[in-house]
């Protein structure tokens, strides 16, 4: 009882919300910071999306129509950087901020001030990066992979690109450290590791990938910086270095990075499918081990991005087999998702629809990835639209769809209102149809040999490009519907219950909707019965 009194004190002390701009600038609150992350991600999603629209507009017809080739290349480069570092990663961190403390029964993140800085770095880093669009020599245009020597030849944008990457890396590492410290140290009594919701598990593993890979990227771009300005020879054969060395170091970061983008998505889908199947997740433990294996293997497969670069044969074979072995734990996950739905009592609310589409469309992207993993055929596919189709299936219909599913799923919890289910379904169907019109034909374009990152193409590719562009425009415009649905939901709507969804289990659903400013001021006791579904 005396303890409870202490909590009352504590509660009163902290539950008055700070107000005004200071609430956001100086925030140490995981929900406010989570919201800022998510809003920032959405804004960047539209900036990156606008760049994609420029790309699809130029590719609508063969020939050079609207933009000059240099600017086109800036668009492909910046689209990727904005979407990866500005949209998908921050959206994942935003969800982690909102959900991890609630899911593990903590009052907040372990290191709230660090959390604030992780977020606020993002707009400043993107000011550095997006500012390059207005610089002499143009914005970065050598591809988001920044290969030397091409990228070293950039104009004034070069140091801004490098420092933006450093800055974003600092943000990611601090965010990841926070996630790990939170989960390791802030779990409520009884919340053992094997009772953690799968979203929390996927985020611990993502955080580990971030801490292990972002510093390597920082090292790679630092070497590029000193090569340009201080006369080092890391990537210059004349001095004994090798431009291919950059590719090795970059992809040592780059492949774990793709799992940084997708693992939180796996976690989201693993929360949603059981809820709307009204069955516990099939194979919880195997899900945890599969996620960990995927993350572990991701450090030994990087050179599958470089099969055509002239590696020794032993390297080609090693990286081919290692890459294909990742299909095993990934297959375990897909199997478990399907088995979760098997004989479930399914309903198809918007989060479930997006999750279902995720399982199917991500698998398509996974299979095309398997094709790309086969060294001899990759010689044909490398740097074609087949690669573009592959990673957009895993990133858009994979990561982005899962993020949409997650937002629809937890939005009633965050705002206290239900969103408009009819509009949500419209958003789903328009997006799902148009995204396939957008990306599916790109498989054929790639197999027929259309190279990526080129503003013009042979007339034989005209039809599929036009179809793809039309799908792209519809997909782009239809995302405005999502903004409308979210704003509408924030402003009002049917009151959400604590549990929100009939089949939802887990600590976050025991809190009121919307939850109090600090989630759990008294640690809840967790037992098998109250743990994950």
């Amino acid at each position, binding site marked *: 009882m005396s303890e409870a009194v202490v909590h009352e004190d504590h509660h009163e002390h902290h539950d008055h919300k700070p107000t005004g701009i200071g609430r956001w*600038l100086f925030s140490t609150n995981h929900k406010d910071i989570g919201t800022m992350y998510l809003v920032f991600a959405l804004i960047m999603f539209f900036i990156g999306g606008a760049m994609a629209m420029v790309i699809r507009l130029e590719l609508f017809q063969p020939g050079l129509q609207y933009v000059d080739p240099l600017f086109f290349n800036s668009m492909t480069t910046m689209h990727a950087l904005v979407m990866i570092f500005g949209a998908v990663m921050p959206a994942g961190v935003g969800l982690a901020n909102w959900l991890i403390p609630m899911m593990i029964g903590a009052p907040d993140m372990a290191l709230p*001030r660090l959390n604030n800085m992780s977020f*606020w770095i993002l707009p400043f880093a993107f000011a*550095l990066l997006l500012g390059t669009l207005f610089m002499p020599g143009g914005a970065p245009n050598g591809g988001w992979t920044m290969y030397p020597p091409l990228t070293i030849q950039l104009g004034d944008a070069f140091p801004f690109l490098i420092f933006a990457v450093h800055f974003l890396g600092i943000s990611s590492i601090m965010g990841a450290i926070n996630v790990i*410290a939170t989960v390791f140290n802030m779990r409520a009594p009884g919340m053992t590791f094997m009772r953690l919701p799968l979203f929390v598990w996927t985020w611990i593993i993502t955080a580990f990938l971030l*801490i292990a890979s972002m510093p390597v990227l*920082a090292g790679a771009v630092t*070497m590029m*910086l000193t090569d340009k300005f201080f006369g080092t020879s890391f990537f210059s054969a004349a001095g*004994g270095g090798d431009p291919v060395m950059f590719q090795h170091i970059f992809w040592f970061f780059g492949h774990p990075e793709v799992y940084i983008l997708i693992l939180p998505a796996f976690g989201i889908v693993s929360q949603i499918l059981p809820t709307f199947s009204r069955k516990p997740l099939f194979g919880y433990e195997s899900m945890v081990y599969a996620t960990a294996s995927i993350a572990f293997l991701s450090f030994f497969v990087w050179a599958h991005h470089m099969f055509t670069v002239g590696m020794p044969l032993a390297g080609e074979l090693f990286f081919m087999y290692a890459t294909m072995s990742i299909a095993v734990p990934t297959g375990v996950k897909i199997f478990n998702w399907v088995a979760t739905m098997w004989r479930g009592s399914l309903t198809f609310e918007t989060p479930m629809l997006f999750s279902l589409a995720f399982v199917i469309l991500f698998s398509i992207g996974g299979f095309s990835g398997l094709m790309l993993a086969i060294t001899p055929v990759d010689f044909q596919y490398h740097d074609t639209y087949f690669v573009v189709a592959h990673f957009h299936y895993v990133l858009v219909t994979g990561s982005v769809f899962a993020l949409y599913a997650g937002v629809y799923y937890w939005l009633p919890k965050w705002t206290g209102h239900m969103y408009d289910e009819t509009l949500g379904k419209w958003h789903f169907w328009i997006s799902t149809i148009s995204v396939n019109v957008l990306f599916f034909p790109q498989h054929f374009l790639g197999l027929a040999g259309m190279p990526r990152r080129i503003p013009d193409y042979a007339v034989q590719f005209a039809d599929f490009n036009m179809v793809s562009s039309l799908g792209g425009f519809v997909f782009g415009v239809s995302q405005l519907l999502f903004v409308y649905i979210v704003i509408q939901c924030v402003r009002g709507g049917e009151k959400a219950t604590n549990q929100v969804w009939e089949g939802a289990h887990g600590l976050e659903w025991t809190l009121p909707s919307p939850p109090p400013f600090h989630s759990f001021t008294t640690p809840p006791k967790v037992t098998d019965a109250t743990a994950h579904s």
Partner: protein
Amino acid sequence: MSDSHSTYFIPEPSRWPIVGTVALFIAFLGAAIMLNGSAFGTLILGFGFAAIVYMFAGWFADVIGESIAGKYNKQVDVSFRWGMAWFIFSEVMFFAAFFGALYYARVFSVPWLAGEGAKLITHELLWPEFIYEWPLMVIPDLEAFAASLYNEVIPAWGIPAINTAILLSSGLTVTFAHWALKKNNRSGLCWWLAATVLLGFIFVFMQASEYIHAYDELNMKLTSGIYGSTFFMLTGFHGFHVTMGAIMLLVILIRSIMGHFSALDHFAFEGVAWYWHFVDVVWLGLFIFVYWL
């Protein structure tokens, strides 16, 4: 300090993170403008650095104040420990990138340029004179590197070996300081810490004189091909970390003299000690792979 998990500590809204963000932004902006050839950038960079120092001072002052006021419980202490441990791991991975570059150059790119394996044609077409040896004494493109050719590199068994001894003994002295602290032996704590700081700065001084020797007498520079690049970037980043670590130790020494820390509660001391051991271990890697083998 309470051992209980049942009361949580959550800091009040703080201005330091946004100050730090803006400070870093100014520093990056200034550095980029400077590198693009404008002296004005150097001014901005200097201002950014000053702001970073201001942020660290203010942020840590807040944390130290909260710690002394007894606001932290065991849980906060453990959060800090996890934070520091994983931060050090991220630093390890940063060094791993540069060690990776060193191994790649030694095992692949330099032998290939000398014609090894399937790369004979590269060798014949580009620089047929070039031969493989390590330490690399010839640079493939001799004309382009005419200003930074060298005949000698820093041998392992001179200053580097002495520096190894210095850094290893500083690892011992910091441990003795920790033992003294745990036994509440305050003077032992301060003296052993002072010895550690001193050893740290001696190391930096020796490293600096080694650099001067390399530049002035050997003509072995950062611009001396891949050998110079890997040598100076690896030892340079390490030297920077030693300097940072020594400054951190100095702060801990001053705090110890002021009577901070207790036998049971001294995370800041331990965090810095971990950092110092990390710097130590990286040096061993450098000594073996950069200087010795």
